[in-house]
């Protein structure tokens, strides 16, 4: 009996050791193959008003690809709050899709994992060449000096959406072009239950995007030339305080916005509770909320009236979605055919038209779908005054740590605690200290 037990113990230990040893291998570094040329798995991000809406938009496009090439595409639309976790899990396990959507701000971080196919000159030639894409969108596909880890699929930029009726009622004729004007207008528009501006105070990505723009305008980069985090510089504190002050000091944002993270600010704007909103291509979402497109106007995001030294003329991040290929795909040729297809002029017009975004493919931008007032503002911003978020491997930490610090600052302000330059700097200092790796 004892011998049996010992034998069992040995067997269990051996099995565990074997599993642990093989498990430790993680994802493989195998180059792609063409072992399964007839099918592809595609993870799409949620660009439409719902997952079902995305499936409706994408299905005919994917069916046409299958008809053309004979390759079956297995589509999964993944919500934003779990997309990055799913990608990281796929990266670690090696069991991922062949082609996938990534937020363009993650490009350099995901590039550093080595899991994504690099688009070198030859690969670009295979999909029609790098010069087909808008340069600013192409700049957000990986670290500078390296081959891109993805290609742009949908481009977005921030704009200022304003309620025309509320502006007219307050006697404001033109939308603000500087933050000082925005505060002044906002205060005139604030009264009773309505406020000048709506923000997503508890949303980490929204906070980070605004931190970047205000940072650029104050000369704060959040990373040095070597890619090391510099979150707690005086310029960064000034930049973030200016944004938090909309709620903390200027009183143009409702205190309740500090707990918004589920697009409630969009609903507040559509419902007439707030007169202004800073958002990326909000048109489709506002229509979904039941807001008449004639009820709102669109203007570029404001700049500083008196730019501080080192400040740059940037009023939006280059927002957007990139298309990447997992390096260990079993259908490399099919995956590249699929990328070629999704970035072709016709499909670009169709998909960007449906999602309210701007095609990052130059030739597709001339289509009449993109001649609306909203698209004109977004295109102009992307062409003239948008910059990509820092394309450094540690960008993910900027998003997490600075975005969270700002959510905490909004919570402080909404709870009635004073937000000073020192308290902002302290929060940023704590964020800086948590940078790892």
């Amino acid at each position, binding site marked *: 009996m004892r011998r049996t037990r010992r034998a069992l113990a040995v067997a269990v230990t051996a099995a565990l050791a074997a599993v642990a040893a093989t498990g*430790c291998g993680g994802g493989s570094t195998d180059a792609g193959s063409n072992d399964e040329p007839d099918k592809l798995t595609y993870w799409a991000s949620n660009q439409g008003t719902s997952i079902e809406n995305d499936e409706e938009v994408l299905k005919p496009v994917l069916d046409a690809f299958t008809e053309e090439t004979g390759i079956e595409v297995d589509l999964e639309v993944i919500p934003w709050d779990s997309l990055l*976790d799913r990608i990281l899990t796929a990266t670690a396990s090696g069991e991922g899709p062949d082609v996938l959507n990534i937020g363009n701000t993650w490009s350099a971080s995901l590039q550093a994992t080595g899991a994504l196919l690099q688009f070198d000159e030859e690969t670009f030639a295979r999909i029609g060449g790098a010069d087909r894409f808008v340069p600013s969108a192409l700049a957000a596909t990986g670290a500078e000096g390296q081959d891109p880890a993805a290609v742009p699929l949908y481009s977005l930029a921030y704009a200022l959406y304003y309620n025309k009726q509320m502006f007219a009622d307050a006697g404001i004729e033109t939308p603000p072009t500087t933050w000082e004007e925005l505060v002044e207008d906002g205060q005139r528009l604030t009264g009773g239950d309505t406020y000048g501006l709506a923000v997503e105070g508890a949303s980490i990505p929204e906070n980070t995007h605004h931190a970047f723009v205000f940072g650029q305008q104050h000369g704060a980069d959040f990373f040095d030339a070597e890619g090391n985090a510099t979150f707690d510089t005086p310029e960064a504190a000034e930049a973030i305080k200016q944004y938090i002050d909309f709620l903390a000091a200027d009183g143009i944002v409702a205190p309740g916005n500090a707990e918004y993270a589920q697009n409630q600010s969009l609903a507040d704007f559509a419902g007439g509770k707030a007169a202004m909103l800073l958002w990326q291509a909000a048109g489709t979402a506002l229509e979904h909320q039941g807001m008449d497109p004639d009820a709102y106007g669109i203007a570029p995001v404001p700049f500083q009236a008196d730019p501080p030294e080192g400040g740059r003329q940037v009023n939006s991040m280059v927002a957007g979605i990139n298309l990447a290929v997992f390096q260990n795909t079993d259908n490399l040729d099919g995956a590249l055919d699929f990328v070629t297809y999704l970035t072709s002029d016709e499909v670009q017009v169709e998909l960007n038209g449906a999602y309210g975004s701007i095609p990052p493919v130059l030739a597709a931008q001339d289509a009449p779908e993109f001649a609306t007032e909203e698209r004109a503002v977004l295109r102009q911003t992307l062409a003239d005054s948008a910059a990509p978020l820092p394309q450094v491997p540690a960008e993910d930490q900027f998003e997490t740590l600075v975005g969270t610090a700002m959510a905490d600052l909004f919570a402080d302000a909404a709870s009635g605690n004073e937000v000073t330059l020192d308290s902002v700097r302290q929060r940023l200092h704590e964020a800086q200290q948590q940078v790892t790796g």
Partner: protein
Amino acid sequence: MTTTATGNVPPPAGAGEAGGTGGTGKSGPGARRSARRRPRLPGRLGRGALPYLFLLPALVLELLIHLTPMVVGVVMSFRELTRLYIHNWGEAPWSGLDNYRVAVDFDGPLGESLLHSFLVTCLFTVVSVGLSWLLGTAAAVLMQDRFRGRGLLRALFLTPYALPVYAAVITWAFVLQRDNGMLNHIVHDQLGLTDQPPFWLIGDNAFFSLVVISVWRNWPFAFLILTAALQNIPREVYEAAQIDGAGVWQQIRRITLPSVRPVNQVLVLVLFLWTFNDFNVPYLLFGKAAPDSADLISVHIYDSSFGTWNFGYGSAMSVLLLLFLLLVTAVYLVFTSRGRRAEDG
């Protein structure tokens, strides 16, 4: 064991060795008959290995589903598993105890925030488990006697436990919203109890929101278990106590609580482990930016791992959490079994 069975049906494992009439002693006619009925496994090996054979599928699945990830997690905690290595983490450099050092360096920012999260979780667990147990016990005792509508009330009490956690917590999040939530509508708009509508999902109040939702979800479980346990106490014991002049409190203290003590010991342990490890409720309620006052450790570890892609450090924190829970469980079991032995003795 009687020997009326026919054919090749094997006896239940172990039953043969239990002896009794016609058992499988080494001599006698019963032994011979019993040996004929055994399946054709070689004698000693068959007897010894059979239980293990039956357990094998469960064992294999247990290893695959529970133990393997734990072992892999422990291995990960000794490596520098950052974004640079997650794709091929066999190549991640070994970092010895570095991840653990960072986690327990309470003067450093990461250790300090982990300690804060640990203390918040301890306080949350004590309050939540205490209240859940108290409510569950009170309701079970009050509903021990038959009365009209008892079945309906029982079903109603169990509803929170039966609801899917996602739907339940999202509903709570709506209720607790500052501007449009039902709670503030009552507290502030209708009753006028506060000057300003308070926040329930950010700031210090978030802790209380979390406790309320946790108790709301867990107390029906305590109620369910204790209701079952109370049904095993014979009515006669209470009747005898009443005849001897014992009041309600004395009956509860001297009869009810001692009778359900073994059940309570397991119940409190299970509630403690569930509450301490709870991920769903805080994550669904606060997302990735939990307020400091409600920074529970499971979400804290998740944020540290997935937020900054530092899975080695995340694993080290998980291992520390595992060790802590094992220690608490072991101490608790030793303590309670000693108490029980003393009582039995």
